[in-house]
């Protein structure tokens, strides 16, 4: 998706100057969309981060879960109880607490995989763009091949490999990191392409040529001088991909290759609740579903706004 958008993002260069002018902040306080979506994102993130203190129950503690509490509706319906604000699931876990703990995993996976993908992508992009020639050709060929395979399939494949190689007991413990790796490895291409095209422009600029002339090491030029100037678009892609990563995690969990249901993410919660959509216990799937959509929507809105704000020509 954002593989194309990245093409436009390539020319966000010079964003630091605009930031210095406080343009971005100015734009921010004048955009209700930006403010609201930031607040929503922050609220969910904070709720997830402090889940152990905020959540009324610990849904992961099997000893405290009682089967006899299962399938209770939210308190405003008949048979509901105020100790379970959004009802309970098929196992007697508090849905509200499960959402808080679930977002924790979803957001963790989202952030880590985006950071991971960005790290790979930026390095590859810098090297390819700066070195050019054969190195560039090989790296971009790999990127092309990977780009044509949908992220979900790549993630499924990597997940499958690791699941097979690792001993079972260990797998569950590191399921989260396996997801991060799978999603991250399928997302790096966008960064690489964007950074590469930015670098190709930067390379011709005077400050780079000057650095080359005074004999600075390539590494220094790349990471100290060029990199800061190409990070603007990276930030925009990262925001949009954060949303995409969370959705991908949910879809993978829905397909049953995500985190185990004993410590569920939002996607796993939705999958489990899916079985109860017809039976009238809609709250088990609808509330986690809503949480997911709101979170992703807020992040996407933020990303959209950020792109427009950082792109001078669109203003």
């Amino acid at each position, binding site marked *: 998706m954002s593989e194309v958008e990245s093409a436009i993002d390539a020319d966000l260069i010079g964003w630091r100057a605009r930031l210095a002018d406080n343009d971005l902040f100015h734009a921010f306080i004048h955009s209700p969309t930006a403010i609201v979506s930031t607040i929503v994102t922050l609220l969910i993130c904070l709720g997830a981060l402090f889940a152990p203190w905020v959540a009324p129950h610990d849904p992961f*503690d*099997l*000893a405290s*879960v*009682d*089967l*006899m509490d*299962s*399938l209770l509706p939210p308190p405003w319906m008949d048979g509901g109880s105020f100790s379970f604000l959004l009802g309970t699931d*098929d*196992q*007697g876990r508090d849905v509200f607490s499960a959402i808080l703990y679930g977002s924790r995993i979803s957001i963790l996976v989202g952030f880590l995989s985006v950071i991971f993908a960005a790290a790979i992508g930026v390095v590859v992009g810098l090297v390819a763009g700066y070195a050019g020639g054969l190195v560039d050709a090989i790296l971009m060929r790999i990127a092309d091949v990977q780009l044509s395979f949908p992220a979900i399939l790549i993630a499924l494949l990597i997940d499958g490999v690791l699941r097979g190689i690792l001993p*079972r*007991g260990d797998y*569950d413990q590191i399921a989260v990191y396996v997801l991060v790796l799978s999603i991250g490895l399928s997302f790096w291409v966008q960064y690489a392409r964007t950074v590469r095209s930015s670098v190709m422009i930067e390379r011709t600029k005077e400050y780079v040529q000057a650095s080359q002339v005074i004999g600075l090491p390539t590494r220094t030029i790349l990471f100290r001088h060029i990199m800061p100037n190409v990070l603007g678009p990276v930030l925009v892609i990262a925001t949009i991909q954060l949303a995409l990563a969370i959705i991908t995690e949910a879809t993978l969990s829905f397909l*049953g290759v995500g985190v*185990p*249901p*004993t410590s569920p993410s939002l996607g796993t919660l939705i999958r489990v609740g*899916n*079985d*109860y*959509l*017809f*039976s*009238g*216990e809609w709250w088990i799937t609808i509330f986690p579903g809503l949480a997911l959509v709101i979170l992703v929507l807020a992040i996407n809105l933020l990303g959209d706004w950020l792109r427009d704000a950082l792109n001078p020509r669109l203003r």
Partner: protein
Amino acid sequence: MKRWILAGATALALVGGQAEAKTFKWAYQGDIQSLDPQGLQETFTLGFLGNVYEALTHYDTNLKLEPALATSWENTDPTHWVFHLREGVTFHNGDPFTADDVIFTWKRSLTPGSDLKGAGGKMSEIEKIDDHTIKVTTPTPNPILPRDLPFFYIMSHKWAEENNATQATSPAEANSSSTYASTHENGTGPFIVTGRQPDVKTTFKRFDGYWDKDLKTNVDEVVFTPISEDATRTAALISGDLDLVFPVPVQDWQRLEDAKGVKPLHGPDARTIFLGMDQFRDELLYSDVKGKNPLKDKDVRGAIAHAIDLKAIDEKVMRGAANPAGLLIGPQINGFSKDLAEPYAYDPKQSKELLDKAGYPDGFQLGMDCPNNRYVNDELVCRAVASYLAKIGIKVDLNAQPKAKYFAKVGPQNGNDTSFYLLGWTPTTFDAQNTLFNIVHSFDKAANAGQFNYGHYSNTAIDDMITQIDKETDEAKRQSLIDEAFKTLKDDYGILPIHQQPLSWGVKDTIDAPQRPDDVLDFRYVTMP
């Protein structure tokens, strides 16, 4: 050149000129693998083919044995049976049914590709007395031979020879010339397969030449569609697209009750779900207890047995439709005894005491394997078990996985890589001996005993009883041996039964379709308005 494939009803109306063909549409969660009646010995497949093929004996709607292609039979001496075959029966292609077909079918069942070698192996010789009488020799005295045969479908030897189908089609064979029988049928049953697209649709119509003219069903045409997603299957019934679907998730029963025109249909399944424990390793695979195996201690097994509230699992997870069990066989199974069927009492206090006594006052860690797409709410049952065990200090690491992975992991091909597992069993013969032999008997690869005794529970006293049960022809003595075996197992906390799971179908109000306790839909009894 265009060929129009229309929905079954219209096609028949056009071809047969019938004004109103009654078309019965149903769905199951999967499709059969092949039309070859010896291709896969699995209840759904064989039950499905039972509408097209017939065996010497037949189960009625209550699993009572009744005559089919054999009209009567007698056990002339411990190792010989005489079957009198029905006269005037023809196969769908018009071939008459005779003793030669039975003998051919038996020989075919022993060919490499056959998955009915087990049933075929119950007979060591079949002798043709005349065209409609055969004499069967069994390798050992077998008082229940007719019970081994209701899924042993008779094929026409002439048809098989004409079509190069004298060998059972094997999944291993890559050439398609030998797979004629897996894509074509020629049985003696009341329905003919008129079209089949695997995974998509199979259509049937009534066989005009069927021998039993008093068949209860009034259905002319049947359309079968496999639908794998539970929600989609339920939706297809409620929306009126289908007449009958199964299985229906138990949680959707209320929805079906509330919806207009449809209802849930449920009854006890012959399958018993139970928990098995590793009792052969000296150290558990997935545990923090090192150097010993707590599950070898009877007190620990007892603690687990009394810690699980089977009634709550029934009430909450199974919506009250299961039958909490104290015995590895359900009431439909030959050998069931009501006195032994009482489940272990739910008593967490006693469990704690037993754990203290065994030297694990703080419990221990235990890895559990569970399928998540095999039995009714299987994963949920496991999660409930894990939650109950957590309350007495046993910390369960649950590994719920698709059945393909699960069986590969816990099965003997992988050295039974499990400490604690959930499994279900329906004895194919509907006799206790089958359960005892496969689930309870000590694991013995050479004798093929205890193949599904994944935890290698072993009690030589019970093994001896099982051997005797196999040979005993006196009903009363046999029953007391069965009772004794189950009683010993129960006192030993060897294997822990959970429940007989419910059968769960969804059906239109206007349709009458008896639900056989082995989850088989027999078209013979289906009636429509």
